[in-house]
């Protein structure tokens, strides 16, 4: 840490007097073992040393980032950022850099995962593949370890580290596929056989599929589907920048969702996977977004918070000048039902394992089109009666979770993959009153 702290102090020295600056350094290793046709075909690892710098000269703001291993690069980064800032108009909404504060001493770190060898990941892959004998397996097992350091010219310093391990894959028969996923802080916590067994079972159960007519169906959605809904709500709704621009569906204090729905962003939760501060050095904290169906809060960075006369919630993200502050450690309260119990409550509907290729048609209504993939099953009279071909849907995600629309919440919340990737949303399965399917994947 001393070496890295020294590196950051050197950058501050080069910035000079009269300049505000914030500097972030991320170091670590990211590795990913990828398999297809039931063997490992691509196996990669990367050393990371990435520095990001934002400077302000009397409100003229610019940023620079780069892979940094030597002082020459450091000097160039600083010079580039300052030169660019000097050529900018004054930004009247520049909030300044953060004042010193204590960062929560929370680490989501597993030393063994940080040191994981390619053989460790290969063992997990083998267990996944072996869970589906005679099937074709594809997917990946990854480990990442990141140490993050932050300093600014107001004297604020923060440091943290986090690890993540992921196993994600499918098993395929000649005519079908099923998926499984697990994200954990530690690779040892990944139950590869169970993930593989679920994927294999879904694939086997989907061998004989048939078309169903498009229309409105009651649905039981897996954690992956709910995670995708949640991340769209966060990115396009609870994001203060989007809200300020008038593009959000959010009406604070209003019962916009079913009373069973509670959603919060909380990187400090024991189950979290990220460092306890954001790219502006602000400490993360719990942000209640929806409580009992009532929309309660937004995610803020320093800029949007200053505009609203509030404190940042610690949700600034890389590239956030354009995207705005994002919820990236979201926990949705789980219920008490098992998936089988929720299915038992459905007279006629569908169980969906995964959404795919979801895209927003209109951000304000959050109308989204997408497809089902890797396991779509017909439910009749409280039981899975067969597998159906993939379907296209066009559905407002806000309406889908509206008052009286959530009929059941699973007791199975976990980190789930989403349209924006894994390790962001901790979600349960969910039983919804209606979902609008507009066509089959075959026409």
């Amino acid at each position: 840490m001393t070496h890295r702290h020294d590196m950051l102090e050197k950058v501050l020295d080069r910035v000079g007097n009269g300049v505000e600056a914030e500097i972030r350094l991320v170091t670590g290793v990211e590795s990913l073992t990828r398999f297809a046709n039931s063997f490992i075909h691509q196996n990669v690892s990367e050393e990371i040393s990435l520095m990001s710098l934002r400077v302000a000269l009397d409100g003229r703001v610019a940023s620079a980032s780069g892979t940094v291993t030597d002082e020459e690069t450091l000097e160039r980064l600083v010079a580039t950022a300052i030169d660019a800032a000097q050529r900018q108009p004054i930004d009247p909404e520049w909030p300044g850099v953060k004042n010193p504060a204590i960062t929560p001493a929370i680490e989501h770190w597993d030393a063994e995962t940080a040191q994981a060898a390619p053989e460790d990941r290969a063992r997990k892959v083998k267990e996944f593949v072996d869970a589906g004998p005679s099937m074709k397996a594809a997917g990946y097992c990854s480990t990442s370890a990141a140490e993050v350091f932050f300093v600014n010219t107001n004297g604020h310093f923060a440091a943290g580290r986090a690890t993540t391990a992921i196993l994600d894959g499918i098993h395929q028969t000649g005519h079908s596929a099923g998926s499984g996923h697990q994200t954990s802080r530690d690779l040892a916590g990944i139950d590869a056989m169970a993930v593989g067994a679920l994927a294999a079972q879904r694939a086997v159960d989907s061998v004989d599929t048939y078309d169903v007519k498009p229309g409105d169906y009651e649905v039981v959605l897996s954690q992956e589907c709910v995670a995708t809904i949640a991340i769209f709500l966060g990115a396009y709704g609870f994001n203060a920048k989007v809200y300020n621009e008038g593009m959000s569906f959010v009406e604070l204090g209003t019962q916009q969702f079913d009373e069973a729905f509670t959603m919060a962003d909380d990187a400090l939760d024991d189950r979290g996977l990220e460092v306890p501060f954001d790219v502006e050095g602000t400490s993360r904290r719990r942000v209640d977004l929806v409580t009992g169906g009532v929309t309660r809060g937004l995610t803020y960075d320093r800029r949007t918070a200053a505009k609203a006369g509030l404190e940042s919630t610690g949700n600034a993200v890389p590239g956030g000048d354009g995207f705005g502050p994002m919820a990236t450690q979201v926990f949705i309260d789980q219920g008490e039902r098992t998936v089988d119990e929720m299915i038992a409550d459905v007279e006629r509907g569908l169980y969906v394992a995964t959404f795919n290729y979801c895209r927003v048609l209109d951000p304000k209504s959050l109308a989204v089109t997408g497809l089902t993939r890797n396991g779509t099953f017909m439910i009749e009279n409280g039981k899975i009666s067969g597998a159906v071909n993939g379907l296209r849907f066009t559905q407002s995600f806000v309406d889908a979770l509206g008052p009286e629309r959530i009929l059941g919440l699973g007791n199975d919340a976990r980190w789930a993959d989403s349209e924006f990737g894994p390790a962001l949303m901790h979600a349960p399965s969910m039983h919804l009153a209606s979902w609008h399917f507009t066509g089959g994947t075959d026409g």
Partner: protein
Amino acid sequence: MFEYARAAVEGALAAGATYADARVVISKEESMEVLNQAVESVGSSESAGIGVRALIGSSWGFFATPSITNAAARVAGERASEIARASAMVPGEPIALADVPVVQASWETPHDEDPFAVPLGDKVDMLIRVSKTMQDVAGIALARAGLAFYDTNKWFVSSQGSEIHQHIVESGGGYDATAIGEQETQRRSYPQSFGQYATGGYEMVRLWDYEGNAQRVAEEAVQLLAADVMEERETALILEGSQLALQIHESVGHAIELDRILGWEAAFAGTSHLELEKLRTHRYGSELMNITADATLPGALGSFGYDDEGTPAQRVDIVKNGTWVGVLSGRDSAARAGLPPGGMVRADGYSRLPMVRMTNVGLLPGEGTLDDIIADTDDGVYMATNRSWSIDDKRLNFQFGTEIAWEIKKGKRGRMLKNPTYTGITPVFWGTLDRLAGGEEWVHWGTPNCGKGQPMQVGHTGHSASPARFSNVRVGVRA
């Protein structure tokens, strides 16, 4: 820089690789965004490092480091081989590589005006003027404009003796105006959604009349709020060039990637509806459909001299008179399929494993103009500028939304329509292609945001297209 790449290759071979290659890549990027006449962000980034790829048995091992020294490069090569060897715990059929010529060469993107030499203030001022023009139109809530420039130097060395230096320059940008109504937003973009990017210098930005189109774009966004909603029906669909380019990207470009066809991307990006045994017999579309993958097109975003395996850029027929005849391939996938290597493997920076990527997958032009097509259409819709896109994992079922549409009645453009969408099945849709505009309206559209692979890689691809008409398409699908 070649010495570091050589050290990496030597390290990999010494550690047991049967083949290795390495790239030293130094790249820089400059980007700027303006929102409502205020600078939202000005940023620059640079990236430098070595990525080395080692082949052992049935797997590639890859290791990347930002340390550009002989010692670090050699260690990176050794690590790549160690990683490849660990893959043997879950083995498959050994990977073979199709032959390519061994070359010592250099190549540079033809460009007139270094985009990084154009004063930053001039670029930002132009964006502010564009934003102001849009914001001056009553009803515009958001007036956003941006530019981005990329400068990449890469030094490639293979264990078979190739040594290639390339300098690639890319430039582009765009803007959009958003009007916000009751529970809806309407947006218009220029030159297209996501901006228009090309290989080349700042002249590729000057090519488009940024300031001359801003007012029209903003006015159309406001008009859309009051426009009629497109009703759901089957009708003739005329697509503007940039939307057709994305249609090509999604329903042809990804489907013809050989790694997808072979199942190598099955878990994430997906597979393909195409089966290799039907190559040269499968009917992809109508007789008017002629698609090439051409990495040699000057100015197109997917152009280069050599791919990231050292294979020379080339033009490959993909669909000829409606019949599927070609794929996008690299050395390993081509060898597996028994096809010649297409030189279509690229990586997103030094730290990513090279993989099959689209080059410039374009639809060759036909005859006449968009106006001719409209004049020849009795009943239909004309849709322009992408707003949403979604397609299944076999690249079969798609649904696109565009920013704007106009009703076509008796050969004339009529009512403006909002919230336009269309949906279809790839070979059925392409089978209905019945009019295709000519070379005067043929544009090398660029897609700067193509995601593929794990870890995710963002690719820059090109898609040449002129406006075209399709019959009996389902339009107006909504929630």
